[in-house]
């Protein structure tokens, strides 16, 4: 393949994700339907039924069993994938920690959706923000094209550091919207991901292994320390693999963060996923009016890119952090808290405020984006702002 020549396909986020899964052709997929991720499973089932992949597909009876079966298969040395949203991810919660603790490189698609109650099928980040501490690498993608490439990279990353990874796409906004996706030929995907090299062979009957024993005060901590070492190491590995991917294929997927018009910015907004696209457009308009405003998009939040956050935001006068999720701590959204923590020892610490927006799939529109930017500008100009504000809600 000539670098930069892609096979252009019109795909929704879910289709792009499923298409990447087809090219990856994992050994085992176990999954359960839930809106808005259902399509990924449906499309993949069709690939299986039509012989387009020879994956062992396990149509389990719940998400808890989906991830449990993935853990079993991954312990068995298989390359394993799954996908879910919202309640499904919540039901998997227990097993997410086990997948990470057993150091299994499972890759999971999450079409972000809010959590009940009240029940609502639309997109926000409540589901995956609840998994922040589960030990998974977390990748939030901005559009279908990025989701496609991120899944392929996630396989390589996860299998290099032996940690599971979840790749997010915004429910409906990305999962169901059609875009042009620059896909790669099958053989290129295959070549890039290579083969999984498991740490042990469960089916070596001459040398039987015991996996998942009771691990008490005398060893548990060392194992957790090793797991953390893998996450520290993931930082380097992610940078290397992303660079290699971009160099090989001519893509320009950012690794941890994407700075947008930040060079001379006096104030800035931090956002994840599709909201970044809306903000970029509004920032362009404001720039034309002479405003020195920029954006930092966080793409990978586990491991958290504190160095990058410090590098790009230190010295900026005011920063607003967007959260499509609550922590219910009264301390603001999860990303606000983490960005603040990262900036605590910055040389030139900006003033910071937060915004919670878009809960339950409430559209994040231009008007809200304008409001956000003007509030951050006010903060820069010395106005007192609350710890964080709710945007686009009837008070």
């Amino acid at each position: 393949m000539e670098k930069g020549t892609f096979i252009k396909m019109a795909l929704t986020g879910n289709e792009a994700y499923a298409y990447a899964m087809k090219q990856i052709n994992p050994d085992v997929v176990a999954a359960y339907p839930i809106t808005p991720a259902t399509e990924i499973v449906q499309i993949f089932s069709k690939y299986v039924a039509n012989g387009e992949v020879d994956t062992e597909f396990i149509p389990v009876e719940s998400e808890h069993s989906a991830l449990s079966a993935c853990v079993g298969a991954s312990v068995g040395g298989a390359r394993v994938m799954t996908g879910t949203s919202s309640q499904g991810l919540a039901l998997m919660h227990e097993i997410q920690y086990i997948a990470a603790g057993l150091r299994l490189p499972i890759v999971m698609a999450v079409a972000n959706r809010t959590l009940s109650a009240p029940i609502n099928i639309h997109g926000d980040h409540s589901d995956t923000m609840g998994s922040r501490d589960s030990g998974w690498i977390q990748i939030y993608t901005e559009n279908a094209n990025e989701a496609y490439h991120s899944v392929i990279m996630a396989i390589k990353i996860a299998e290099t550091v032996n940690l599971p990874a979840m790749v997010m796409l915004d429910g409906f906004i990305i999962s169901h919207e059609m875009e042009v996706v620059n896909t790669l030929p099958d053989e290129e995907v295959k070549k890039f991901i290579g083969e999984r090299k498991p740490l042990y062979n469960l089916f070596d009957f001459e040398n039987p292994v015991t996996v998942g024993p009771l691990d008490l005060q005398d060893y548990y901590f060392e194992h957790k320390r090793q797991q953390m070492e893998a996450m520290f190491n993931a930082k380097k590995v992610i940078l290397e693999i992303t660079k290699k991917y971009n160099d090989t294929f001519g893509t320009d997927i950012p690794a941890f963060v994407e700075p947008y018009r930040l060079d001379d910015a006096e104030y800035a907004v931090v956002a994840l996923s599709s909201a970044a696209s809306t903000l970029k457009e509004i920032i362009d308009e404001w720039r034309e009016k002479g405003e020195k405003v920029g954006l930092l998009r966080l793409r990978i939040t586990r491991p958290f890119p504190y160095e990058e956050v410090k590098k790009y935001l230190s010295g900026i006068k005011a920063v607003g952090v967007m959260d499509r999720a609550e922590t219910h701590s009264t301390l603001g959204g999860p990303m606000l808290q983490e960005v603040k923590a990262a900036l605590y020892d910055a040389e030139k610490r900006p003033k910071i405020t937060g915004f919670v927006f878009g809960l339950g799939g409430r559209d994040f529109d231009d008007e809200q984006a304008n409001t956000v930017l003007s509030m951050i500008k006010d903060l820069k100009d010395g106005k007192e702002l609350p710890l964080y504000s709710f945007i686009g809600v009837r008070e």
Partner: protein
Amino acid sequence: MQRLNLKQLAERSQGFAPGHRACAGCAFPSIIRMLLAAGADYDLVIANATGCMEVVTTIMPYSAWPVPWVHNAFENAGATISGIERAYKALLKRGKIKNAKKPVKFVAIGGDGGTYDIGLQALSGAIERGHDFLYVLYDNEGYMNTGIQRSSATPLHAHTTTSPAGTVIPGKQQPRKDLTKIIAMHRPRYAAQGSPAFWNDLVKKFQKGLEVDGPAFVAVLSTCPPGWGTPENMSIELTKLAVETRFWPLYEYEDGYWKVNYKPRKFVPVEEFLKHQGRFKHIMKRPELIKEIQDEIEKNWKELLWLESRKKEEEK
């Protein structure tokens, strides 16, 4: 199927290592040895649910298991073994692993809590999907690992820490859920109930369960001295009394037909089984409560004989 004598059983138990930390008199180490002996013709992979067995056999850095063994969580042994089985199939198909020397068999093991209660859904799903595995239930009739709480396997009137024998309520107020029948109605390839005291019968059941292609289920009664309040040297005898009193009948379900494997010649009242057990101490002087347990036994036995009465055409 090879009929195994005691000597062969001992030789074939594949070195399930001593030094595990099960209590003195715990019945499940014997059950494991019989399972491993029955499985010696195969290469086994085991998925074990959380519970006493998992805890006492694998305290890091030790493991008593001589075969590949995986513990995931409490309620998902059925799903875990599903994943392992499919991984094996996938990797073999793609030439990523070599064929084992012997046929490979997949076994999930869970306690009554991990099987009757919290793990029932995962087990039901795995059987329905038709995975090739044997599920072994070791039924000690309570959540022993967490300190003897009731499960839906706990018998009527038994004292546990969450169904205590109080001054008003005399222990657990519900009879055991009839899990083996519930599993049988999933129409697996094989389902059976066995007891370690009837080792010949139990080993044969394990052999059958392993031999079939597709899901199989064997429930085994497993004495727990601290949980049952029984003397450590009576464990196997109690699993015999449970069968003699028909409290725990031995039977099989195959291809839609039921077979009772052992019919006691003479009537043994359930009291003979109950009287050795601290968990029933509070009802020993209350014949009306013992009668309730006896009635439950008669009802279930009658139903079992009725089920058995439906014979295959060639046997008619």
